[in-house]
């Protein structure tokens, strides 16, 4: 009864993005999925419900998205890799608990298949309006990592990456997909499994007396699971290194600083991005997700018109890849931020760019056609 045999075999597939996400999670070692039905993420739950029991792993459909992410935290505290998937309204419901996961330092993966909003919006149409919420949605100071795929292959790759990062840093990691990337079928190449890097959280196995569950000695304390015999305490209250509630300002400072710094200090190794034709570009389009596919086509067409245009596709949205954007902005005359919203990613870009920044915004529920981006580029050139 080896589960390994039932994982998606290496090879070339034509697969839906949401399904690729599930298969990636299984390969990454996800053992618990909790979710609540919501379009356009449903295929993830549906496929999970079929696949998890085949591997002796756990699928549960919870009563709402709050219960889903909380159950994911519970499973993670018990030592297993766990995830949930949702879309706009459900993502909003999860916000409080994303803060809990950050505070308790419970690794988990949240997939948000973005749809057109606000509110119920258009469930079957695409949006990219959750960029800021993904980063700032829960109250208080914390940092997490947000990846944004623009293809089925990237959805697969970044889901595995999300598990790895969450295990490495003991943080919630969000895969900020979108309706098009989720529902789109595309070519997927699955490498040999032993070529896929899998990271598991560092477990503590030393003497019980010496164990501090929230030690500040390193940025990421070693983990123990429920039932390991260490009898730990975890609380969403501000806590000291023992995990006990504390009203000491010093404890609060050290804790919050560590929660933030474990992401900030590792930002460089978390930044994932791809550049296209930026070496001599006067205008650079910064974009992500499905909009990156429109933009790349637009940039190619602009080049064929003789326009000096380049593009940076961000695969990591948070921590924001400041350095590549700043450096690009020192050579370009203008940066354009293309996104399916009224302007969200443009803010961190503007914060670091040393040249003027403008938005190409397309808020109507479709992926912008390349022509639309091209018009924006022509206007900027």
């Amino acid at each position, binding site marked *: *009864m080896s589960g390994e045999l039932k994982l998606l075999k290496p090879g070339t597939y034509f697969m839906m993005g949401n399904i690729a996400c599930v298969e990636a999670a299984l390969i990454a070692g996800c*053992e*618990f999925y*909790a979710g609540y039905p919501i379009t356009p993420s449903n295929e993830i739950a549906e496929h999970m419900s*079929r696949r998890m*029991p*085949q*591997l*002796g792993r*756990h699928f*549960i459909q*919870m*009563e*709402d998205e*709050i*219960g*889903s992410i*909380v*159950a*994911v*935290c*519970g*499973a*993670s*505290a*018990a*030592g*297993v890799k*766990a995830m949930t998937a949702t879309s706009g309204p459900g993502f909003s419901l999860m916000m*409080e*608990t994303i803060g*809990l996961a950050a505070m*308790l330092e419970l690794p988990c993966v949240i997939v948000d298949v973005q749809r057109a909003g606000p509110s119920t919006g258009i469930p079957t149409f695409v949006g990219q309006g959750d960029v800021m919420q993904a980063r700032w949605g829960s109250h208080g100071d914390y940092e997490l990592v947000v990846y944004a795929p623009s293809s089925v292959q990237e959805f697969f790759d970044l889901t595995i990456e999300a598990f790895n990062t969450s295990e490495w840093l003991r943080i919630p990691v969000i895969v900020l997909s979108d309706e098009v990337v989720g529902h789109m079928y595309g070519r997927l190449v699955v490498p040999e499994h032993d070529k896929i890097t899998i990271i598991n959280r560092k477990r503590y196995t030393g003497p019980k007396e010496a164990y501090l569950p929230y030690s500040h000695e390193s940025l990421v304390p070693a983990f123990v*699971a*429920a*039932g*390991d*015999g*260490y*009898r*730990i*305490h*975890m*609380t*969403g*209250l501000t806590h000291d290194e023992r995990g*006990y*509630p504390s009203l000491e300002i010093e404890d609060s400072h050290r804790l919050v600083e560590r929660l933030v710094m474990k992401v900030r200090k590792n930002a460089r190794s978390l930044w994932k991005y791809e550049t296209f034709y930026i070496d001599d570009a006067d205008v650079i389009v910064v974009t992500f997700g499905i909009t990156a596919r429109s933009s790349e086509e637009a940039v190619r067409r602009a080049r064929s018109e003789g326009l000096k245009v380049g593009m940076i596709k961000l695969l990591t949205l948070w921590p924001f890849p400041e350095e590549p954007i700043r450096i690009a902005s020192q050579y370009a005359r203008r940066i354009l931020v293309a996104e399916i919203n009224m302007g969200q990613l443009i803010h961190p870009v503007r914060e670091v760019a040393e040249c003027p920044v403008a938005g190409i915004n397309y808020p109507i529920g479709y992926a912008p056609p390349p022509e639309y981006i091209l018009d924006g580029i022509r206007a900027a050139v």
Partner: protein
Amino acid sequence: MGQKVVLRERIVDESPRDDLIRRERFPHIWCPGCGLGTVLKCYVEAIAASNIPPDKHVIVSGIGCTGRIAGYVRLDSYHVTHGRPIAFAEGMKIVRPDLEVTVISGDGDLVTIGGNHFIHAVRRNVDINVFLVNNFIYGMTGNQMGSTTPLGAKSSTSPYGCPEPPFNLPLLAAALGAPFVARWTTLHVRQLADAMKRAMNVKGFAFIEIISPCPVGFGSYNDLRDGRDYIKLFLENCIVDHSADLNKVGITLKPGEPIILGNFIDREAPTYHDLELEVFKKAGWLK
């Protein structure tokens, strides 16, 4: 004289259940006359008597006065967000069926903000214990009414008397199929500890409603200002009836309308774990 000092030191510094209590965290935050110390005591006694090693016991609690209980028990203990301990416990129990997972939290936490998780966890019959401490009020936030505040009772947000009828929790849990349903007060220490021990050995969702005094909060609004007022109430107004009609065990706190206590339900029903194993078989994982 010297003997007296030794006696005092022994009382303060040692407890037969020190292995289960985080003594370094005492004194606790609970008010004089509060019943939570008794709940804590009963819980650790039940653990000691449960025949399940303490390392396998896990406690999850939410927010509020009762929520702090997880922090005082020397077990793997999780103090999570408001209303969510049951969902957290479900995730934990599903991936680690060998753990004995107990949720201890308040009425506001478990059946008001967290009511949806409560009803669905009972329906699923996840094999966890839920010990709900009902003090009829939101104590920690300043004595606001909640879904268990008796009709007409006063609180900081019901100055004219609570305008809503409260939950009848044993009826709710039983109607949803809970295999074990009990209600005791913090005065009924032996029965409560025994019920907790039984709950730990019951297969499936075991529910105990614990009626607990809150003289500083609820009591100050409703003529129960002293812990002794509650003891009198529990002594004089409680009836133990294990086979009570659960339709009639709603709490009114009116004179002549007693609080009915007992181990009302103890039955077998397939647990979430049992049913998941069936799924594993159909999926081909298990033969």
